[in-house]
C-alpha cells in the first residue's frame, strides 16, 4: 500500500523516501558509480565482505539497469591514508567510498568534498538511529554506517577455568584479580599487539573514557583542548595497570593479527587468556584455525567476550563503551544515484544479509534479529545498552592529533614516555593544526 501511494503521489516533496526522489530525478540516463571499499581477500583468499558487496551491487544494478557500478577493493590503510586523500585532492574522487567518521571526515566535509545527505536520506538517518552520530558534523550527515560495535575483552573460558576464575570480571579490581590468578597458573593473562600501536592505545582510550566525562571527550574532538586533568589521569591509570605486568613478555614486539606469535594468534592458540579488541577479532581468531567447520566450532566453544570492566571514580559513565564502525560517503560531485545506492546498502534487508553473509554487526535496528551467533549477540546487546558509545579516540581526533596520541601511548608501553608525555604530544599536534 505504501509503495503504491508513493508511486502515485504527484507531490515530489511528499513523504516518499529519498530513493524515490533521487531515482525519479535523473531519469533513466546511464550512470556509472565508482565505489571504493576495504573488503579485500585475507590470507586464506576468502573475501566474504568483498563478495557480499559484489552481490549488493549486482542486485542494485539489476533493479536499476541504467546504473553501472565499478568496484575497487583496496587494503584498509592504503585506502584511508593514501588513496582517498589523494583522490579527493585530485578532484577525481570515487563516487562512493569508505568512511570511518570522526575527525578525518569532519576535515573532508570542511574542505567541501562530501555530499550532504541530511535531506536526501533523512528517512534512512532516522531509521538507523544514534549509530549515525559519528558520521555527522554539527547535525549535518556526510555518510552512513553499515556497521557499528563496541570493543570488549575476548577470552578463553578454558584458561579461566584452569586458573580458577569463576566469573567474568566486571570491575578493574576483579580484572586485576583474574590477571593474578592467571599468572599464578603460568598463563599469559592478556595479549596486546603493541607493535602496531593502536591495540596498545585502546587500553588508554578505555581509561580516558571512564576518567573523562562524555562532554569533555566529545568537545575535545572539535576544540582539541586537552587541559582537563582527566587526560593525564588516563595515562596514570594505564601506567599503574602496566605495572601489574598483565601483558605477554616483549609486548612491543608483538603485532596484532599476523602470524601465530601475534596477539590474536596467542589467544587463538591458547597461549594467552584475554585480548581487548573489536568485534572483528572473532573472524581474525577463526583465521588461525585450519578453516574447517569442526575447527571453527571448537574455537567458538572455547571463546567468549565480556565488556571492558568498569574503572573506579572518574567522571565518565561506568557503562560507557568505546566503539567504532564502517560507513560510506558520497563525493560532493557524485551523481544523485550515489545517495540512492547508499540508502540501499543500509536498507534493512541488505543489513540483514550483511549480518548473515559477513557476520558483521549491522546498524539498522531492524536487522538485529539477523545476528544469530551468541557472542555477536552479546556485543550487539552491549552496544545498544551502553550509556553512550564513544567513537575510537584516534578516529575522533583525526590522524594528526590521534596519531600523536597513539605514539605517545605506545611510549608508555615502551617505557620511554609517561602519562604527561601523551598529553604533551596531543597538545603539540593540536597546535600544528
Amino acid at each position, binding site marked *: 500500500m505504501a509503495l503504491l501511494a508513493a508511486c502515485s503521489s504527484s507531490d515530489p516533496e511528499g513523504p516518499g523516501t529519498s530513493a524515490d526522489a533521487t531515482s525519479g530525478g535523473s531519469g533513466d540516463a546511464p550512470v556509472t558509480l565508482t565505489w571504493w571499499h576495504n573488503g579485500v581477500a585475507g590470507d586464506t583468499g576468502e573475501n566474504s565482505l568483498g563478495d557480499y558487496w559484489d552481490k549488493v551491487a549486482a542486485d542494485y544494478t539489476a533493479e536499476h539497469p541504467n546504473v553501472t557500478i565499478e568496484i575497487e577493493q583496496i587494503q584498509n590503510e592504503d585506502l584511508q591514508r593514501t588513496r582517498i586523500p589523494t583522490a579527493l585532492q585530485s578532484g577525481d574522487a570515487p563516487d562512493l567510498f569508505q568512511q570511518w567518521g570522526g575527525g578525518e571526515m569532519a576535515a573532508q566535509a570542511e574542505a567541501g568534498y562530501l555530499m550532504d545527505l541530511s535531506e536526501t536520506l533523512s528517512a534512512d538517518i532516522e531509521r538507523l538511529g544514534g549509530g549515525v552520530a559519528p558520521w555527522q558534523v554539527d547535525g549535518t550527515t556526510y555518510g552512513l554506517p553499515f556497521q557499528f560495535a563496541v570493543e570488549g575483552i575476548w577470552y578463553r573460558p578454558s584458561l579461566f577455568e584452569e586458573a580458577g576464575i569463576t566469573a567474568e570480571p566486571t570491575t578493574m579490581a576483579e580484572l586485576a584479580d583474574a590477571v593474578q590468578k592467571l599468572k599464578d597458573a603460568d598463563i599469559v593473562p592478556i595479549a596486546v599487539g603493541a607493535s602496531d600501536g593502536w591495540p596498545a592505545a585502546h587500553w588508554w582510550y578505555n581509561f580516558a573514557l571512564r576518567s573523562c566525562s562524555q562532554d569533555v571527550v566529545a568537545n575535545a574532538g572539535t576544540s582539541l583542548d586537552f587541559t582537563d586533568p582527566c587526560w593525564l589521569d588516563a595515562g596514570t591509570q594505564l601506567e599503574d595497570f602496566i605495572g601489574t605486568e598483565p601483558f605477554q613478555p616483549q609486548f*612491543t614486539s608483538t*603485532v596484532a593479527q599476523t602470524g601465530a606469535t601475534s596477539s590474536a594468534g596467542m589467544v587463538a592458540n591458547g597461549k594467552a587468556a584475554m585480548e581487548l579488541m573489536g568485534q572483528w577479532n572473532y573472524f581474525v581468531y577463526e583465521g588461525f584455525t585450519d578453516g574447517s567447520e569442526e575447527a571453527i566450532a571448537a574455537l567458538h566453544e572455547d571463546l567468549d567476550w565480556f565488556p571492558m570492566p568498569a574503572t573506579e571514580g572518574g567522571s565518565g559513565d561506568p557503562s560507557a563503551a568505546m566503539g567504532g564502525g564502517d560507513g560510506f560517503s558520497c563525493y560532493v560531485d557524485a551523481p544523485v544515484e550515489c545517495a540512492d545506492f547508499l540508502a540501499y546498502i543500509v536498507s534493512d534487508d541488505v543489513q540483514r544479509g550483511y549480518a548473515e553473509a559477513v557476520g558483521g554487526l549491522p546498524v539498522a535496528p531492524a536487522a538485529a534479529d539477523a545476528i544469530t551467533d551468541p557472542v555477536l549477540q552479546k556485543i550487539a546487546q552491549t552496544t545498544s545498552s551502553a550509556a553512550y558509545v564513544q567513537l575510537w579516540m584516534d578516529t575522533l581526533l583525526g590522524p594528526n592529533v590521534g596519531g600523536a596520541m597513539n605514539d605517545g601511548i605506545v611510549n608508555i608501553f615502551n617505557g620511554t614516555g609517561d602519562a604527561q608525555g601523551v598529553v604533551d604530544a596531543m597538545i603539540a599536534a593540536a597546535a600544528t593544526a
Partner: protein
Amino acid sequence: MTALEASGRSASPAVDSSSAAGSRPVTPASEHTRRATVRKWAEIALFVGPAMVLFLTFVVYPVVSAARFSLYKWNGVSQFSDAEFIGLENYARALFGGTDPVTQQAFTTAYSQPFWEALSHNVAIIFLSMAVQLPIALIVALTLNRRFRGRAFTRVVIFAPYVLSEVIAGTMWLIIFDPNGIATELMRSVGLDMPAGGWFEDQTWGFWTVFFIITWKYVGLAIILFLAGLSGVSEDLQEAAAIDGASWWQIQWRINIPLIGPTIRIWAFLSIIGSIQLFDMVWVLNRGGTAGQYSTIASYMMEIGFFRADWGYGSAIAVIMFFLSFVIALAYMATILRRDNAHPRKAR
C-alpha cells in the same frame, strides 16, 4: 635513490650538450654547416628529449611541488588553496622546535627531537657502513678473487640478499627475530637472552639489530663490485710482484686495493646516498620502530606526512632530505670522485 640516480643520469647529457654547443667555434654560416647544426640539434633533441621530459615530470616537478607544500600549514585533506602560508616555519619546527616561544618547548619534544634522532640514525649508518661493510667486503672480495671450485655458486650466494626484495627480506628477519623466534632460541641455547625490550624494539639494541640486517642486505653489492674491479686488475702485475718476492698481503695492499680505488670510491658514494635515503627495510620492519628506535629521515617523513596527515611538515622533511643528498652528492663528486672523473684513463 631514484630521484638522484635519475638526476645524475639525465643531467650529464644535458650538460654535455650545452657545453658542446657553447664551445662550437663561430664560423661563417655556410649552407653545409647550418644543415649540420640543425641536424646536430635534432639529434640532441631526439636523444635527450624523452629523458628530459621524464626527468622534468617525475623528478623536477615533484621536488618543486614538495618545496611549495613545505611553506604551508596543510593537512593534505583541505583544498591546498585554503592552506595557510607560514614561510619556513615547518623547517624551523623540524630543526629547533619553531620560532613561536609559546609552542617551542612542546614542538622540540614532539617534532624536533624525533627528527634529529632519525637523522642521527642515518649518519650513524653512513659511518658504520664504512667501518663495517667496507672491511668485510674487501676481505671477502680479495679472498674470493681466485679460481676455485664453486666460485660462481659462492658469488651467487653472496649476492642473493641484495637481489631479494626488501619486503621479503624484512618479513624473513621479522620471523627470525620474533621474541619467540629462532634467534631467541639460539641465544637461549648458549645461555643468553634477547635484548630486554625485544630484538627490534629495545631502546639500545633495536638500532643494532637493524644495522645488522642492513649489512647483511648490502654487503653483497660491495663484494660483487669489488670482485668486478679486481677482475680488471692485470695478472701480470701480481705475477711480477710475486716473482719479486711480495707476500700475498703485500700484493693485496700495494697492488690490488689501490687499483680498485675508483670502484671503492663509487661504492662509498652509493652507500652514503643509500644510507641517507634508507626507507624500505626500516618501514617493513615496523615503520622505524614503535618509539623510533631505528627511524630514518625517510621513515619519519612518511610517518608524519602520510600517517599523521601533516603534509606541509612532511614536505619540509622531504626537502631537507633532498637537500642533504644533493649537497653530499655534489661535495663527494667535487672532491673524492674528482680524481676518477678528471682523468679516467690515468686513474685506471
